[in-house]
């Protein structure tokens, strides 16, 4: 990993806050630190879920990650 855990967390949160769609695949976070292993990115993303910064959004067949405020807004508008 080129970034520290804290910097990677910040980059993931920023990505999830600014992406055009609120739901992101785990792969979308890989570009936050191209040197990090996919497993490390996944571990950090899951830590962010535990901390309440991200949440899981599931279609049933696919699981994505989202910022809670963005996804709740979107679900209200459906």
């Amino acid at each position: 990993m080129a970034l520290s855990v804290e910097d990677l967390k910040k980059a993931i949160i920023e990505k999830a806050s600014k992406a055009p769609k609120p739901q992101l695949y785990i792969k979308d976070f890989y570009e936050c630190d191209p040197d990090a292993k996919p497993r490390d990115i996944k571990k950090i993303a899951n830590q962010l879920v535990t901390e309440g910064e991200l949440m899981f959004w599931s279609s049933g067949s696919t699981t994505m990650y989202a910022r809670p405020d963005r996804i709740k807004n979107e679900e209200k508008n459906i």
Partner: protein
Amino acid sequence: MAKHPTPLLDELEKGPWPSFVTALKKQAETKPECWDLLGQLELSYKDRITHWKHGGIVGVFGYGGGVVGRYSDRPDLFPGVEHFHTMRINQPSGMYYTTKHLRAMMDLWEKYGSGVTNMHGSTGDMILLGCRTESLELMFYDMTHQLDQDLGGSGSNLRTPSCCLGESRCEWACYDTQEACYTLTQQYQDELHRPAFPYKFKFKFSGCPNDCVAAIARCDFAVIGTWKDEIRIDQEAVKKYIANDPAFPSNAGAHKGRDWGKFDIQKEVIDLCPTHCMKMDGDKLVIDNAECTRCMHCINVMPRALRPGLEKGATISIGAKAPILEGAQFATLVVPFVKVTKEDDFAGLTEYIEKIWDWWMEVGKNRERVGETMQRVGLPTFLKVMEIEPLPQHVKEPRSNPYIFWREDEVPGGWERDIVEFRKRHAA
């Protein structure tokens, strides 16, 4: 008393077979949301479109799988199914339950959900249909704390592993499928509950090539029991089958409800061998084991005379899937034989599983199953990732090889040749 008229669904009660409509009407007597379930389904039949919205943020805290969100798009008409989420429950290995456990599970489900179940879903889980969002955590807490029962997988996770009955009941099991399934379920809890992959990933464990859990067609990583040495033959028992001894019925008597005539070993076994590796030598049955593809037909027909060999293990086939995004795909044999044992914590399997995951997480596209990634990059690349040399078992027969292409450095002299010299022997 029915809440909504359901003339179209009522048609489904008229046949001689059990009807889910009748079962739901009965359930509706104590769970009124089932009237709305029937009402919404009737409307879907009429409109010819689903009225479910699926997906969303439902789940239990910390888990990225196990709950599939379902909402009605007509809660004004059907308030009982406004939320009707599905919970996937991790079934025990081989689906062995005690009735006490099942009753306790159903008591919880009656308390927190609709009481409607699907036993079992195609991955193997117990499927509980119809839970409101606010009841999910309560159900999950009681289930885990009172019954030691966990949720299964959904989404881009490892899906609930499943296995056949294996050594618990089947003499043909070539490894302990239940132990393998349980151990790997425990070992990969993180992958089961928290999404890590581009898409779903399934394991299935079959004890022998009869493949009772259909691993070869239904999962990304199929572990199918096999043997390396010779089929064990009891020649005396073969003679009894040929003599139509009533104690030796063909197919273990499975089809004896009808008179099929006398058992004919030539017609029913030898001629049906896919590789023609069997013959009678006098009154002895002879098998050319090097040609045997482990189809199990002869063993299934004469179980008291033939048995799998003694050097047992499993074949690993990778990349099967049912049609969802792309068409159905059968598994590709990748590892012809591996020892599968608890003694080394199933290292023979985990070594390959983790290699595949690390590679697929990196190169797999979103919503691409591992079999599709394999197809996209080609088998030679995949074999390199797995650090496996191409083997004769990877091809159907010599010179009909669709997969393995030689690289220039593997061919003596490379690709360079004297075209003038070549044309002297082969006119254009």
